[in-house]
């Protein structure tokens, strides 16, 4: 076990220990102490995470590769599912390391904040202090979330996934004496369960078709099966699902969508978004930690982790869902008056961005957005918590205003958060906050896939050789950048970007059908609703053929020192199985990736435009939120008089604000890029961004350098300023103008305020529907089934009464009186409840049994020819 693995494993366990301590000794520890136990536990984890991060940052790519491989061999045998062994291990790679750091770091500061937040009366449930319980749950959450991050196994990911859901349930319902809180908790859990249903389906598919639940193993198996057209991709392999024929790619797509359903629940994507705004019923630190920074991002993390199992259609599905979410939720945020709800909708919208980013193939940008968003959104929520606590639990922004003077630190840090989420930056200078880089990158990739996708591109540079540095290649028209090693015959590794391999025809008439090795389902081009363009896509070659995947290890910087120097930004992490000898490549699928790329559809244009327009909406509602809260004149003197801030609460805000800056520039982006080399390396994946080391570089790369993108760069880059100005103009003089505008939009505003009536719809359709069905079942059970049972009893009783008086009376009486007497003797002390009538019941037993035998024998005829084994496939 390497140090890193040990650090991470211990880091996961420490919060669990804290949980156990608080569970048993919490009440004895008392009010501040219990909190400090949780804080110090999380602090210790955070120290370990920092050590890991620093150490990992110092390792070069070869060392990282071997560490990853070593970690994947060092696992605990947990259980066997049939023939499949389930092992627990630490998934050690760059993504884990940064996620772990992010979670521990943010958790630590939110725990600190919580001590300040709970210092007042916020810890009381119906007048009784539940202080220790709050920190108990928080510790459990810390454990579960960290476990989720380090899981190397899909089943364990799912287990921790549910545990964070449980913590979320318990913490949303922390004030469980309030009906709305327990309602919200229940809603969150059940909505998540709907997603989990899909997740379980996905797990079943992975288990069944890929024969492993290990993340890397599953990805390798997926690629192998695709390449060799076996297993899930087998020709003629069809699974019938309620009349829905699934085969090959569609089957794999269903698997991907199933797994994504889990993410839809946790990350509150449309149409399962309804729980997150309600989840704000929990204490504000919980909203910051669980429902903004970490748990809701777990869905995004999951998609990133299973990215290698996603087919182009599954990705398209993800992109569409993400796009719908980000657009609809941003619009709702505009009309919110509750400060936490406003942030909640903005969280939904930002999560939509991340999911959208993953869907369009902007893996790095999406995860980078996750990181930066975690910091600034946690900070924004904590800021709102400070405001709410300071204003005596007033959450309505209409009653606030002018709080800047009373809460300067909060106001300033909140402003930084607003700037970050709005994508503050100055186009052309590479200066900006996190959201600027990540959001723009996602949009650039979306634009590329919408508009630049089917154009043939000119070829320049020799394929198979290292290109020059970044600048020289970036003169091309393409945004797409991938690392493409040459075929295995050539031992000299080759890295080229932006230059497709010349082997691929760039003819616009090369149809999909003509490509050998293409899967039939692709050939039919009905894989999804979106038709494939007939021309071979120019993206066709950007991904490396999967066959070369296993010798990515050969592609080390050491082999090409010149190249390494020129491209210091490159880091490549290999597949952990690099040491395993490669399998012979199946010739029929040698250029399978090429063909599958050809099948990847362009993005519908509305997806891009929705995301772009939302880039204008986001800064607007965030500025509106900030202005209404902190600027202008105080609108409620009572609230204003109470407003105050405490150092225990604003200090974490400052720390997070600092990290919002730091996260925008250093450490995170390169490490994500590093992780992307493996995570997006798959046969059926379109990955677009993936080289630039730092955010600024990527940004320049993607948006600024190319002429064609200039309008995009400007249009996206200044959106924050334009929207800020609009918000300022509307709200600088109080709420009057806003109300007028709202009246002007009338029904639309109502629609937004009612959140598109989703709650009502679901309430009617599912909650009422389910209860109605349940009542029907209950009726059926109580009246119909029981009626038959009672009827049978009655009939037999009559029959018995008749026969009892008949010829057999003496015999029957003799036997059963004897039986009754015996049982009465046994239970000498017991008065039998049924003395007089027992013969009837026993007779019924005999009669009933006879009836059943006759029924089975003569009515139910399972033994008729051909019916018995019809269920079995020949």
């Amino acid at each position, binding site marked *: 076990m390497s140090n890193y693995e040990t650090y991470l494993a211990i880091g996961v366990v420490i919060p669990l220990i804290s949980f156990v301590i608080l569970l048993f000794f919490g009440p004895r520890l008392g009010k501040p102490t219990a909190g400090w136990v949780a804080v110090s536990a999380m602090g210790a984890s955070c120290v370990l995470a920092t050590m890991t991060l620093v150490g990992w940052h110092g390792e070069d790519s070869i060392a990282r590769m071997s560490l990853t491989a070593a970690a994947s061999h060092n696992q605990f*045998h*947990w*259980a066997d*599912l*049939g023939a499949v062994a389930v092992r627990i291990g630490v998934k050690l790679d760059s993504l884990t390391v940064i996620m772990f750091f992010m979670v521990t770091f943010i958790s630590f500061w939110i725990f600190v904040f919580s001590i300040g937040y709970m210092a007042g009366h916020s810890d009381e*449930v*119906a007048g009784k202090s539940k202080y220790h319980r709050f920190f108990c749950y928080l510790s459990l959450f810390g454990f579960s979330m960290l476990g989720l991050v380090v899981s190397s196994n899909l089943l364990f990911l799912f*287990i921790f*996934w*549910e*545990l964070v859901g*449980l913590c979320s*349930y318990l913490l949303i319902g922390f004030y*469980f*004496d*309030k*009906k709305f809180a*327990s309602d919200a*908790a229940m809603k969150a*859990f*059940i909505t998540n*369960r709907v997603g989990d*249903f899909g997740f*379980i389906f996905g*797990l*079943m598919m992975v*288990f*069944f078709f890929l024969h492993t639940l290990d993340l890397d193993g599953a990805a390798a198996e997926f690629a192998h099966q695709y390449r060799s057209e076996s297993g899930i991709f087998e020709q003629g392999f069809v*699974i*019938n*699902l*309620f009349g829905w024929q699934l085969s090959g790619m569609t089957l794999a797509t269903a698997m991907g969508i199933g797994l994504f359903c889990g993410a839809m629940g946790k990350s509150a994507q449309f149409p399962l978004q309804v729980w997150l705004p309600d989840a704000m019923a929990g204490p504000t630190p919980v909203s910051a930690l669980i429902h903004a920074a970490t748990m809701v991002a777990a869905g995004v993390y999951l998609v990133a982790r299973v990215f290698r199992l996603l087919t182009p259609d599954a990705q398209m599905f993800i992109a569409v869902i993400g796009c719908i979410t980000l657009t609809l939720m941003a619009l709702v945020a505009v009309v919110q008056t509750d400060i936490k709800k406003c942030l909640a909708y903005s969280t939904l919208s930002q999560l939509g961005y991340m999911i959208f980013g993953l869907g369009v193939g902007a893996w790095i940008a999406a995860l980078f957005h996750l990181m930066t968003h975690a910091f600034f959104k946690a900070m924004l929520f904590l800021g709102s918590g400070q405001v709410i606590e300071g204003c005596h639990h007033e959450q309505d922004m209409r009653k606030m205003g002018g709080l800047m003077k009373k809460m300067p630190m909060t106001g300033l840090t909140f402003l930084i958060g607003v700037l970050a989420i709005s994508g503050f930056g100055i186009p052309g200078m590479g200066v900006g906050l996190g959201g600027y880089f990540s959001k723009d990158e996602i949009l650039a990739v979306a634009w590329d896939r919408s508009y630049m996708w089917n154009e043939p591109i000119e070829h320049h540079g020799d394929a198979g050789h290292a290109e020059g540095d970044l600048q020289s290649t970036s003169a091309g028209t393409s945004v797409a950048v991938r690392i493409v090693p040459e075929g295995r015959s050539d031992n000299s590794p080759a890295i080229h970007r932006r230059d497709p391999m010349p082997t691929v025809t760039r003819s616009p008439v090369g149809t999909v059908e003509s490509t050998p090795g293409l899967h039939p389902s692709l050939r039919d081009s009905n894989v999804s609703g979106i038709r494939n363009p007939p021309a071979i896509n120019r993206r066709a070659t950007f991904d490396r053929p999967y066959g070369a995947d296993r010798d990515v290890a050969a592609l080390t910087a050491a082999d090409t020192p010149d190249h390494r120097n020129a491209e210091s930004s490159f880091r490549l992490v290999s597949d952990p199985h690099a040491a395993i000898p490669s399998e012979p490549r199946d010739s029929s699928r040698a250029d399978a990736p090429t063909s599958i790329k050809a099948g990847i559809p362009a993005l519908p244009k509305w997806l891009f435009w929705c995301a772009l327009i939302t880039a204008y909406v986001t800064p607007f509602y965030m500025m509106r939120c900030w202005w209404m809260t902190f600027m202008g004149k105080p609108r409620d003197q009572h609230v204003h008089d109470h407003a105050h801030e405490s150092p225990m609460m604003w200090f974490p805000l400052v720390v997070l604000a600092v990290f919002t800056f730091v996260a925008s520039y250093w450490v995170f982006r390169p490490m994500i890029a590093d992780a992307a080399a493996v995570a997006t390396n798959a046969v059926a994946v379109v990955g677009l961004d993936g080289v630039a080391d730092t955010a600024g570089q990527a940004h320049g790369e993607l948006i600024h350098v190319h002429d064609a993108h200039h309008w995009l760069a400007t249009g996206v880059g200044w959106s924050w300023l334009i929207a800020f100005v609009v918000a300022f103009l509307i709200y600088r003089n109080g709420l009057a103008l806003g109300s007028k505008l709202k009246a002007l939009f009338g029904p639309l505003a109502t629609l937004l305020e009612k959140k598109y009536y989703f709650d009502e719809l679901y309430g009617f359709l599912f909650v009422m529907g*389910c209860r109605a069905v*349940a009542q029907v*079942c*209950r009726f059926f059970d109580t009246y119909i089934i029981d009626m038959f*049972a009672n009827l049978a009893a009655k009939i037999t009783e009559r029959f018995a009464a008749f026969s009892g008086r008949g010829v057999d009376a003496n015999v029957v009486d003799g036997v059963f009186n004897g039986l009754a007497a015996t049982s009465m003797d046994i*239970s000498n*002390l*017991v*008065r*039998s*409840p*049924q003395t007089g009538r027992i013969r009837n*019941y026993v007779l019924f*037993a005999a009669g009933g*049994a006879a009836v*059943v*035998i006759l029924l*089975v*024998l003569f009515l139910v005829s*399972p*033994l008729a*020819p051909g019916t*018995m*084994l019809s*269920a*079995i*496939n*020949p």
Partner: protein
Amino acid sequence: MLLTSVVFAPLIGAIVCLIMPKELTRVVAVLTSAITFALSLFLILPFLGGGDASRAIEVFGGAYGEKLHFVHRLPWITGETFSIEYFLGVDGLSMPLIVLTTFVALLACLASWNFNEWKINKSIKGYFFLFLLLEMGMIGTFAALNFFLFYIFWEIMLLPMYFLIGVWGGPRKEYAAIKFFLFTLAGSVLMLVALVAMFFYSGEAVAGGAPSGYLSGVEITQGTFDLIELATNDAIQQHFGASSTLFLGRAFAPLMFMFLFVGFAVKLPAVPLHTWLPDAHVEAPTPISMILAGVLLKMGGYGFLRLCYPIFPTGGVAWAGVLATIGVVSILYGALCAMAQTDFKKLVAYSSVSHMGYVLLGIAVMTHTGFQGAMFQMIAHGVSSPMCFFLVGVIYDRAHHREINRFGGLWLTMPKYGTMATIGFFASLGLPGLCGFIGEIYVLLGTFEARHQFAWAVPAAILAASAVILTAGYVLWLIQRVYLGPEREEHAGFPEATGREMLILVPFAAFCILFGILPKHLFFDYVNGTLVNIVDAVQAATQTGAAYAAGF
């Protein structure tokens, strides 16, 4: 001998109960069940590798390396043409269930400690006598390897249960007790038919003298009640499985399978034979509900795994679709019915129907994972559902009603109890990390895995998986209505769970968590051997079953 003493220790205790003065009855009963539990723990030793494995008897021809431990066999009833043995033994299938039985019985006995507060002033001696008699019947059923003996223990269980519900039960106790009695009896009558038929048909099969399936060097010349022999003797298996073997003009194996199945399905209980269960639970006193849910329902699942599948594998293939359908219907129907209940105990009872549906589904698909899941689900449910019933009992003792809608805020009133309730009900919900999850996911994966064999496997898996939403729905709604919300005036004075109550709840909660975290090390390592053998045997029969199917 150890096994025999485990089986009959409760009987001795029961007799002592009758002799001792009234005040000491409960002490004797608790001591007896504690001793029985302690004795039963020794049964685990050979499975850990620490026991005397040399005395074990190989079963399934030893071909699969499976062994019977603590075998105790004596000639019992010997006639001219038949001999019935007293034959006890444990393998991976029965060991966990016996330990579960003694464990639940001990805790249920502790739950009966406040007998005098029940306001049913009926003989305490009789109660504990019958209670221990019931325990003997249950352990005996799991330990018996002779069908005749099995049947006798099966029926022995019935009578104490009838009186325990009928005498110490609630307002509709007579109705519930008789319903329970008759449903079970109707099932066991079919079992009796199968018992007799199997004896004679096995006699036909080995008429010329066939070598024993697992006792080397022994030839059997007449019919047998030996369950292991019936499952492992090639001559018997061939005769039973042949399509030319007829019973009342029907193929033998599927018909016998169905006879046995009906008997066990009543106990399981499978929809639509479940209607005795809610009534029985609602009327039965808390400890009896615990026994009923924790152990008696497992008899059904155990019967499938011990009798139906090993002896009539072809029958299992023939009826797989029907069984799986019943399983899926039970899961969904039970969950929906549970959602509509307003009686706390009835809700838990219907949730049992739903959970045991997973057992049936897992068994019906005949995959390794499915069988393992079914077996685990039985143990998991055996831990979580008695806990839930006891949780109901605790507040029933205080409130004297079970109307869910009249409760609320109990977590504030009784914080410790509320925490325990959360663990118990979340385990029932199938939360990962607790015991309920493992069984469900294994069954679901196992069902999906059976896709090769059955076209309906995938839809069945998906339908069953959709129950996770319903389950979450009714459990969380229940928790909300009972434990969350503001305190109610009428319940504000409820005392916190007492030491005795915590003593019962904590072991349950601990096992709920432990089984969820370490399923392999606490469970699968001991039972997989047996289960794999059974599945392999069934699968092998399925291969020949294809040819057999052509005969229909």
